[in-house]
């Protein structure tokens, strides 16, 4: 175990954790308002495509990120309308989004770039290199040689923790997920809050998807999200519905991902798929250890009907 090895694994951990972190925060904001959304996978796919296309057209990664967020919001409004206004089952509608969003993304890709086109490429977002500091061994490249998105993700975690634990607005927000009827009697606009939650969720998962194409992979391929939308749901459970917990969970899954890539390269005799299984198996094992569905917001996943007693 050389120092360079550890540094590269840690760096990869951060890189792999960031998209998951965005999507997990999306799930966190959604579930704190009582909205279980298993359509994150689809939202991230749309975000990935929107981010890719915008960057391809304008050449600006930031435009791509922004457009990814917008696309995520737009698609999640379908989910919001069905679940909040029509009181559809959250899970079932999340499934519907999971079918619609990737179909839409691959259709747009094929129409725009042509059916049999070779893979289009974009240039990735440049890394910020802080002079001097990036040369510190171990932590240097880890902390001071990343894309701005990494810093944004970590800043969001802090912001989220402060918002939920230290502000009145955050408490109001959480009340909607814990007991919407009580919240409504206090004059909180529950329906509006839930729509807001869906908008935040759509934006964050869209950004998570756009990160994959603008900061990570240079191309858009079908299935680029590869289960991150579902792992994010597990990360929120693992992280006990708190910002800090989600961060730890995402770093753990990022580490699994970083290790599996390393192991793939280092041991050729074992089929590489066994290593690729690691993040998914880890999710199952972690959930089995952490267990319990009781820890989340009380009214999580329950449709809110205004007139019902």
């Amino acid at each position, binding site marked *: 175990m050389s120092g360079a090895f550890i540094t590269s694994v840690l760096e990869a951990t951060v890189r792999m954790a960031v998209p998951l972190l965005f999507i997990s925060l999306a799930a966190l904001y959604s579930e704190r308002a009582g909205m279980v959304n298993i359509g994150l996978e689809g939202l991230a796919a749309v975000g990935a495509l929107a981010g890719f296309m915008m960057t391809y057209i304008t050449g600006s990664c930031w435009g791509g990120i922004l457009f990814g967020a917008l696309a995520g919001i737009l698609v999640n409004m379908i989910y919001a309308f*069905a679940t909040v206004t029509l009181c559809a089952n959250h899970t079932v509608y999340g499934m519907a989004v999971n079918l619609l969003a990737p179909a839409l993304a691959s259709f747009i890709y094929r129409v725009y770039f042509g059916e049999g086109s070779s893979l289009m490429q974009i240039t990735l977002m440049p890394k910020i290199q802080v002079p001097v500091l990036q040369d510190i061994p171990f932590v240097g490249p880890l902390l001071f040689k990343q894309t701005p998105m990494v810093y944004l993700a970590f800043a969001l975690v802090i912001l989220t923790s402060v918002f939920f634990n230290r502000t009145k607005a955050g408490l109001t927000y959480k009340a909607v997920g814990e007991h919407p009827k009580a919240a409504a009697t206090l004059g909180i606009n529950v329906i509006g809050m839930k729509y807001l939650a869906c908008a935040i969720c759509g934006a964050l998962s869209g950004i998570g998807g756009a990160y994959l194409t603008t900061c990570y992979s240079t191309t858009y391929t079908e299935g680029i999200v590869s289960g991150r939308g579902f792992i994010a749901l597990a990360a929120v459970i693992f992280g006990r519905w708190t910002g800090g917990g989600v961060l730890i969970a995402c770093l753990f899954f990022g580490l699994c991902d970083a290790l599996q890539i390393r192991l793939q390269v280092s041991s050729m005799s074992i089929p590489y798929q066994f290593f690729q299984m690691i993040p998914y198996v880890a999710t199952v094992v972690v959930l089995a250890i952490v267990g319990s569905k009781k820890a989340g917001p009380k009214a999580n996943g329950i449709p809110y009907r205004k007139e019902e007693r």
Partner: protein
Amino acid sequence: MGKLKKSLTVFLVPVLSILLAFGIGAIIMAALGANPAEAMKALFQGAFGSKGSIGTTLNKATPLIFTSLCACFAYKCGVLNLGGEGQFLIGATAAFCAVHCSGAMGLPGILLGLVVGTVAGGIWGLIPGILKITRGLNEMIISIMLNYVATLFMGVIYTSWLREKMPQTPPVDNSLKLARIIPGMRFTWALVIALAVGLLLYYFLYWTSSGFKLRAVGLNMTASRFNGFPVKRYILLSFVVSGAIGGLGGAADLLGTQFRLINGYGAGYGFDGVAMALIGQLHPIATMVVAIFFAALRTGATAMQVSTGVPTSVSDIIQALVIVFSVAGMALTALPEFEAFRLRLTSKKGGESA
């Protein structure tokens, strides 16, 4: 009378959703510069135009029937099994390995493959079931994670362990391939197995007392527990049977049409199955009809692309819109506001006729 009205809305929602989805599909086709009427005609003819195309449609429907019944059965018991794809693939993989490694030929080989596939699928379904009833875990996340594991495990088989020159396995022996029933039509005995499973499920769910209890658990777990039904046992049972159906589907599809394991096999079957079960309102017979409809859409889409240049992905969008609209529609009809609106309409009609 009220019941008749209710079943009318139950029937109307999917039909309207399909029409609406096709309407939007037509707009997309027009936007792409194709003549929607022509494209729709090509789609329909491609799916049902000749004996051969009907055969292809039914053949495409076979795996979808299995995965949709797999989703349907679990959801009847109130658990959402999103692992249909993994159970299907693990069934296909296990069946392939069993017949390949044992060297069994002919009918015994076929039976071996089907049984091993069913058992493997059942075990794959058992995992989220056990974790749900013992640890209270969310069965959806676990079953989705197992999808990825199953897909990767199939990858191990066709890229390393039983690989041909290309990254794929050799085909199964000719004596193991399920026979076609009608000459000139592509579907095989796998379709018969699928339909039989569907009818059996229908019988079990609606005509036996265990089936009734299982549905009761699905409708209200707390009430069932107070009635002394072994809720946990039913949940576990529904997962195992659901997984076994998926596994049987994988084995039957492998021996009927696929013959070898290859990259991309079975992708999306599981989620599609859930969608079909939901559009079919969790009724096994209706679910099978929906599966055939979706298969027709896919078969037709290929013909449509050849003759009018409209890409096949339009049919994916139509398919997704059907589920988007029908689930929203079902939720809409369940709203108290809608009920009030419907009552006002009917009472007005009653007033006029009086």
